[in-house]
């Protein structure tokens, strides 16, 4: 009698509850609030941007102006616009150079730090500082460091007998100055994640390689990098996506100048859309860029994130 009634009641209870709603339906219920937020506030603006891009919109024309439907004119304009292509090419150049330097520096540093004997933890922590600081705020500080007259970097150049540079004012130098800033801020990102990857590598294959007498170079090429590659590719993709939409330090240092040499695509779209108030053209261009980034990101990330989370589940 007594050993039966406890489980009996509970099982029927659960069965009864399960009839109200299946697990699948319950999951959908839990996801709904988040989806509502994302749909209303994420997809509505997107559709609105499509709407804008198909009309003639000039905010300077006054509130009474009608936004006439012009079909694909704005897209035609965008694809024939030299400045748009110049800004895209500039952004691609910036992203490729900057992210490559970050990857090389970050990975090398990670190897160095991984083999350190003392203060590993403190050093790792200190590398967080650039990452945590707001790019817009430290960007302004870098403007001071780069200042042609009383900046520290010029003082340092002169101290070692080199010519001072007009870091942000010289059209041959300015984009590279921005790259240096970006490298300063984001190399720690590559470093920290690579370091975490290195530290979680399995021990056994390395011990086996050591027993076989494999050279350091061979171990790196055959073991370390292949095992590390999923993490490295993920870092590369995340960094590339971010580099391609660089805005904050541009807005607080050069504002796209001198001329347009530091005008990245985001800053260019800001200027067209919200300075010249041609939201229609800017939206069309933004949608083209959005398409490129989403295709790239969706394609790459999907594979990577799945790989990583599968791995985590079995660990």
């Amino acid at each position, binding site marked *: 009698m007594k050993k039966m009634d406890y489980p009996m009641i509970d099982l029927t209870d659960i069965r009864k509850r399960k009839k109200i709603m299946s697990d699948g339906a319950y999951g*959908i219920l839990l*996801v709904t609030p988040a989806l509502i937020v*994302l749909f209303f506030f994420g997809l509505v603006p997107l559709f609105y941007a499509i709407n804008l891009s198909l009309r003639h919109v000039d905010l300077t024309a006054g509130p009474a102006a009608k936004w006439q439907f012009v079909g694909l004119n704005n897209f035609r304009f965008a694809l024939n616009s030299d400045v748009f292509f110049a800004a895209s090419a500039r952004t691609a150049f910036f992203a490729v150079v900057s992210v490559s330097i970050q990857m090389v520096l970050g990975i090398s540093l990670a190897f160095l730090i991984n083999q350190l004997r003392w203060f590993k933890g403190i*050093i790792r922590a200190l*590398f967080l500082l650039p990452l945590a600081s707001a790019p*817009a705020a430290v960007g302004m500080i870098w403007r001071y460091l780069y200042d042609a007259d009383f900046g520290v970097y010029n003082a340092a150049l002169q101290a070692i007998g080199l010519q001072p540079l007009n870091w942000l004012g010289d059209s041959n130098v300015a984009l590279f100055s921005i790259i240096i800033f970006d490298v300063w801020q984001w190399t720690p990102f590559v470093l920290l994640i690579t370091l975490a990857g290195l530290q979680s590598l399995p021990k056994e294959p390395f011990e086996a390689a050591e027993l076989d007498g494999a050279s350091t170079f061979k171990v790196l090429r055959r073991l370390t990098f292949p095992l590390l590659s999923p993490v490295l590719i993920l870092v590369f993709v*995340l960094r590339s996506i971010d580099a391609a939409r660089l805005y904050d330090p541009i807005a607080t240092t050069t504002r796209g100048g001198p001329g347009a040499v530091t005008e990245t695509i*985001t800053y260019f779209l800001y200027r067209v859309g919200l300075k010249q108030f041609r939201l229609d053209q800017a939206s069309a261009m933004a949608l083209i860029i959005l398409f490129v980034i989403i295709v790239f990101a969706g394609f790459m990330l999907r594979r990577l994130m799945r790989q990583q989370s599968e791995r985590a*589940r079995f660990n």
Partner: protein
Amino acid sequence: MRSKKITAIDIMRMSIVIAILIITLFPIYWMITTSVKPTDIILMTPPAFFFQPTFEHYKYAFEQANFAHYISNTLIVALGSTFIVIVCGSLASYAFARYNTGGGNLMFFILTTRMMPAIAVVMPFFVIFRTAGNTAIGQFLQLGLDRLGTLIVCYTIFNLPFAIWLMHSFFQDIPTELEDAARLDGYSRFKVFIKVVLPLAAPGIAVTAIFCLLFSWNEFLFASILTRDVARTITVGVGDFWTQRGILWGPLSAAATVCVAPMILFALLLQRWIVRGLTFGAVRG
């Protein structure tokens, strides 16, 4: 096996790392010292390393530029959006982790929204909120240009995908056996979530919340385009000292220090979780 002897290579490695660390930390060191330098020393060439510290720039930043107002704005926006993100996000990511809702496709769709270039969203928002600001509902909900509600909406959208992914990784770490046991004890699914899962996931949720606060605090693009005075946030406020008559480096450094310092503390607090956060939960450092 490694020998215990300290070799020349060890020393060399250490020196290289320390040299790079000094270069890395220098801009932040310079920002902090500039914020307490007297104005005449700030503009000296060559730059001076020794001086009598002063706090006049902090005073100036808070009295002239209304920095306290920017900080409170930023806090309201950051806390408000983080609250919505955590409530909606924890429910959703739990559903993804336990019930595999959407079979993975939905989660990827959510991640893609995070990868959108912000500029593509901010332009339609500019028009939408300009209109919303003139309606009664918009005014009641503080939605409109230069309103705090607008920024809360923007930051919620951008942090929600991140939070869902990061919390997902934490929910995955909780063994399902515990939940099954609680179910056998007669708890409903929702009660299991509240009484069993949430307490176990609390550290992960806290980590996610701090990340969201950090991102909102540091955000610049939305804030600079959608606000002017009323809802101006701290990162935009730092630019106040870039005036018509030139840049006031002292107050600017003070403002930048006020903006950067708390987030550095947060990051140090998050140290253990930083890698997981930065990779949306994919790499568990």
